[in-house]
């Protein structure tokens, strides 16, 4: 998987696999902007199976508009949410 860079527009996978998933349901299928790469870490979905978490996965800080996440959001348009998402949950758009 090619690396993401700050400013890249990404969509979170809208999948619902079983197991321990660090990508909350409310953000799946939503579109955001990559802020930065936070590092590369053992994959928690694999660690959750009692294994070593390899291959390691890059973790990105992704920014979403609150209005894109919550249909009834009543706050300012400029409000955003930053959330950490692993590379295999992101697709470039």
């Amino acid at each position, binding site marked *: 998987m090619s690396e993401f860079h700050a400013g890249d527009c990404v969509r979170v996978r809208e999948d*619902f696999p079983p*197991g*321990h*998933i660090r990508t*909350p*349901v*409310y953000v799946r299928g939503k579109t955001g902007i990559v802020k930065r790469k936070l590092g590369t870490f053992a994959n*928690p*979905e694999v*660690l*959750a*199976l*009692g294994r070593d*978490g390899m291959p390691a996965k890059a973790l990105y800080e992704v920014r979403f508009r609150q209005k894109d*996440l*919550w249909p009834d959001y009543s706050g300012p348009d400029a409000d955003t949410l930053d959330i950490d998402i692993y590379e295999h949950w992101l697709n470039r758009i």
Partner: protein
Amino acid sequence: MRGPHDIGGLKAGPVDTSAHEMTFWEKQIDALNVLLAQKGLRKVDENRRYIEMLGHDAYNTLSYYERWTAALSRQLIDKGVFTQDEVDAKVAEIRDRLGEDAA
């Protein structure tokens, strides 16, 4: 589709933020978790998977450390550390010792 823990954005009542002391058995479970991690029998993410697998009813009924206990028990059975029969026998023995009726 949505695990019992994954409640971001759902309606929720007021959150009880009052502090409380841990009971002795809660401390025991906490200590057991640390020891099992040191022995390589437990990882945080693995623990999370078992807690999230408890299902909505159990997850929303059990207290925090009751969830830990239920999850840890299942996890150690899956790893072959002990069997469900051994857990049941131990529980019966303790109930007997405490003079409780079997539930």
